[in-house]
């Protein structure tokens, strides 16, 4: 396991940021998904040794997060969420500088800085002052500094925040490329479901400091439920109560569309039987794709 933590607890005063979090990361790209304030960034900061958990333990790349944070940081690349840079520098100096701080020899850090800047698409702009960079370029620069020392593990904290759709796609393309066969494991923290779906094979869903689900996205999407979209005429509440008694869960969208989650063991005929029993007419019936968004909404308890 490259990352393994168990029973982590962390609070900011009276606010519990992480509450008994246990998880492990396998190879490939893993999404750390959760609404704002779920504890994603706190978890990453604990993994890097920036914050000390109140309880619990963990290992990153075999090193203890409590006692060997410097060894972890040498082998891990971190792209923070905030807009960060050093003024008065160009991208090559900036990237090479952080390579050197990671422990690379100066000449090699400089050579490598050129390589990663070309990789992230800043080759032409590498001698420009960082103050003149656009938001998208700064985001790619942050990725370059995280890659310069060729990390085994990459922590990306909201890498697409503040980007326009094109910039977002470009960053995601890069991350996807890194995740595919480059030998770098990625932990991508985001509250944007589509970003995680595009890049990651695995997902960990955090809500209010707790892990509410984790596993392969494919498995999570297909497990336990079939989804149907319906429109009806008649007493909706009565019909939904009847379905709930049979083990179905439902939600009603703003435009009156009913989404029914049918457990695998329940036959779809039950929907019609409940409608017959409660005198409801079904006007629209369509099997739907169970997306990560549906799973996420159910896991964190929001529409």
């Amino acid at each position, binding site marked *: 396991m490259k990352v393994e933590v168990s029973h982590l607890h962390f609070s900011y005063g009276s606010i519990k940021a992480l509450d008994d979090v246990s998880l492990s990361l396998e190879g490939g790209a893993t999404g750390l998904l959760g609404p704002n304030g779920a504890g994603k960034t706190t978890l990453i900061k604990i993994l890097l040794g*920036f914050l000390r958990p109140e309880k619990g333990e963990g290992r990153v790349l075999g090193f203890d997060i409590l006692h060997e944070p410097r060894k972890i940081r040498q082998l891990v690349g971190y792209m923070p969420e905030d*807009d960060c840079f050093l003024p008065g*520098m160009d991208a090559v100096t900036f990237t090479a500088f952080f390579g050197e701080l990671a422990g*690379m020899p100066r000449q090699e850090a400089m050579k490598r800085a050129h390589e990663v800047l070309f990789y992230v698409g800043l080759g032409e702009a590498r001698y420009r002052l960082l103050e003149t960079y656009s938001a998208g370029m700064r985001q790619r620069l942050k990725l370059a500094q995280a890659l310069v020392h060729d990390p085994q593990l990459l922590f990306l904290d909201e890498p697409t925040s503040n980007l326009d759709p094109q910039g977002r796609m470009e960053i995601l393309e890069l991350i996807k490329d*890194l995740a595919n066969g480059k030998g770098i494991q990625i932990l991508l923290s985001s509250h944007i479901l589509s970003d995680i779906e595009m890049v990651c094979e695995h997902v960990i869903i955090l809500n209010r400091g707790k892990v509410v689900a984790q596993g392969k996205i494919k498995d999570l999407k297909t497990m336990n439920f079939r989804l149907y979209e319906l429109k009806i005429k008649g007493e909706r509440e009565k019909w939904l109560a009847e379905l709930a008694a049979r083990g179905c869960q439902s939600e009603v969208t703003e435009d009156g569309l009913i989404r029914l989650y049918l457990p695998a063991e329940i036959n779809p005929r039950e929907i019609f039987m409940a409608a017959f029993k409660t005198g409801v007419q079904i006007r629209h019936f369509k099997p739907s794709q169970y997306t990560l968004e549906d799973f996420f909404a159910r896991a964190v308890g929001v529409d």
Partner: protein
Amino acid sequence: MIREHGYSHWDGQFIERRLPWWPITRLNLKLAFRKKHFRPVYAFSFMPAFFFIVAIYISERIEDFQFIMRGGRAVLFEINPNFFKNYLASDFLLFMLILIMVFAAAGLIADDFRFNALTFYFSRPLRKRDYLLGKAAVIAFFVLSLTAIPAILFIFIKILFAGNFSLLKNYPWLPLSIIGYSLFLTFFYCIYALFLSCLSRHSRYVSVMIFAVYVFSDFLYGFFYNWFRQPFLLLLSLKHNLQQVAAFAFGVKPAQPVPWFWSFLVLGLFCLLAGYLIIRKIRAVEVIR
């Protein structure tokens, strides 16, 4: 697709640096010299050193310069510990060091706060002390280049012009005094500038603070001294405290009849408090509890 080149792995080996803070120092020195107006200010700070070298030369050619010796000015050209104290604790040099801090040290930590760069530093295998040493070494470079290095050079030049070692024979402890007081000055300026630099996210405010605190402390002393005529009031002034300690370091009579250790204590307490606050302020992440 924005990639211009494919990703390739680095096949080198990490090295264990004996001075892990050195890249920080090197980079910040480079950035300091790139700052507008900094180079003329730094060069101008060497003016006293130049005049003191001229004084050493004159001291060895005293007969040739009789025309400037009227009115007891010969004392200016006596090369003794007081000569070195006058250089290292001169109002001008101490003020120029403050100006150098204004230009080169104000943004050392403030800019890292402002542009969230601390996270980058501490996401590397770097300890807090490495970060602080890296920043402090920038200040140390400028202070030592204007204090210890010229003062040691004065000794060499004096030996060279005199053709004998009489200066060192008469005052064998002089090099130690120079080094000791220069290190004391360096330590004070490092703490002073870094402390003020971590009080704000804007280096301009820090520049103003570095300048204002120094000048205001001196103003305060002058104001109260005119009022109460108490020599102990010099403890309010950073400059006078530094000069009192210098007088002790070079074994000369201090300007005011106040024991040197009071000044040392005031500066020491200031450094302790400031050092504690610096350590508290520097974190990889802002934790609000």
